[in-house]
């Protein structure tokens, strides 16, 4: 996700520590950074949340309007997810049209929400074929210190969980957006032969491979994304999945609180 260089010294330091089961910031290999969620952060959005995962800081806004459904899904609402890696968030981010990193980030978060049927799109139909609710999820990365996938997905679920369908567009009263599931992603990074969870920036920069696993409240797997040029063995994938399920439960409680 970043073209910044890591000094050889730092690289060796991290690799050596990880090989002995330790990490540069003192965490255990399976320990995620502190997650704090501030819901309803933005008044101008129908739903919003600021998610801080360690020093990684992501603001997600949900804008809701009404419009026409797609012709092939006349009874479904519309959900669109975009991510902006604004140049404020890192010296390596630049202005301009979204680059592949931002597109992958938005699509991975979108898939976690969509495939889990977090929002039942059929419930977002107002008049079949004519009028449906349209949800825009905008992920605004403010400070990039590693693991944007998870910070963004936690921010997105939190923002959806407090979103309101605005009555001014249909009459009546504001209705909470109905959420049916609570998908939580957990990302692991493989560095040489070791695996760490919720990689920090330096870990992410020297990682050989990355795996994001999204599980729901029943522990079922809902989405996965492997990244970078390294590989995982089957046993490693199973280890990442079972750990993601366990860690996901704790994170889900923080998001639902």
């Amino acid at each position: 996700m970043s073209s910044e260089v890591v000094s050889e010294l730092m690289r060796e330091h991290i690799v050596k520590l990880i090989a002995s089961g330790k990490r540069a910031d003192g965490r255990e290999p399976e320990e995620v950074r502190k997650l704090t969620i501030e819901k309803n952060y933005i008044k101008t959005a129908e739903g919003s949340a600021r998610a801080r995962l360690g020093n990684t800081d992501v603001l997600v806004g949900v804008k809701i309007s009404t419009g026409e459904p797609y012709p092939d899904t006349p009874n479904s609402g519309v959900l669109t997810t975009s991510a902006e890696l604004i140049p404020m968030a890192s010296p390596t981010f630049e202005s301009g049209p979204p680059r592949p990193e931002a597109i992958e980030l938005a699509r991975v978060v979108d898939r976690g929400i969509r495939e889990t049927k977090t929002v039942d799109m059929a419930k977002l139909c107002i008049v079949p074929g004519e009028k449906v609710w349209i949800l825009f999820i905008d992920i605004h990365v403010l400070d990039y210190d590693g693991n944007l996938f998870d910070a963004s997905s936690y921010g997105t679920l939190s923002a959806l969980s407090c979103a309101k369908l605005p009555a001014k567009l249909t009459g009546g009263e504001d209705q909470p957006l109905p959420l049916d599931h609570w998908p939580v992603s957990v990302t692991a990074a493989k560095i040489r032969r070791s695996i760490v969870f919720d990689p920090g920036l330096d870990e992410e920069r020297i990682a050989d491979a990355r795996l994001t696993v999204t599980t729901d409240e029943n522990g079922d797997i809902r989405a996965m994304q492997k990244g970078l040029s390294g590989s995982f063995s089957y046993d490693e994938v199973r280890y990442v999945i079972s750990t993601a399920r366990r860690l996901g439960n704790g994170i889900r409680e923080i998001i639902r609180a």
Partner: protein
Amino acid sequence: MEDIEHIPKEIQLVDDSGRRLDGRALDELRPIRIEAGVLKRADGSAYIEWGDNRVLAAVYGPREAHPRHLQDPARALVQCRYNMAPFSVSDRKRPGPDRRSVEISKVAGEAFAAVVFTEQFPRTSVDIFIEVLQADAGTRCAGITAASVALADAGVPMRDLVASCASGKIAGQVALDLNKEEDNFGDADCPMAVVPRTGEIVLLQMDGHLMEDEFDRAMKLSMNAAMKIYEMQKEALRRRYVVTDAEALLEERGVDT
């Protein structure tokens, strides 16, 4: 950008006793809170809440100027990017720069070029990022005020801070610091930015309709307000950098704080 359909046209912006819709007097600022040093990756940063505006500013540099053909062998470039988050306004804004953002970025960058000692850093660029998270009129003034604190937080050598504020005309009367309703239904808006120590005006824009004496009164209101804002900027920097007696004592004894 603004949704105005819910506000009746015959709205009374100023009541008979000279109070505005939000209870302010004509020469009263909205509540302002500034915090310096809020982002980890940026070289300097600041956050400002100004009424219902919420704006982040970050500074990188002086760093190598990109693209290289922009480099000035005699001085640093001061480049500013003003951007609104898609969820910062009531109708979702399409991500990315529009004509308005490009113009604001340009004049804000020029305002800062007036105070930064650019000749000390030839061929480099000082990059200023202003992100509007929640907008309620006056975002450029809030952004410039915060960015100025971010520049100081980054340690960029400057002649002084820049303080910014707007005045305008509502219901036929000159008023300080218009909020969104007042901006939508008012008669004029005039944002400015000033170097407080010298009184130099480094940004000035106006739209609407003002008589000459009204302009004089508006400028006087803005100038007075800018001096108050200047104190808040310095206070934010003091809060960030002041060393208490206890901390000094610990440092003297070599205790890591």
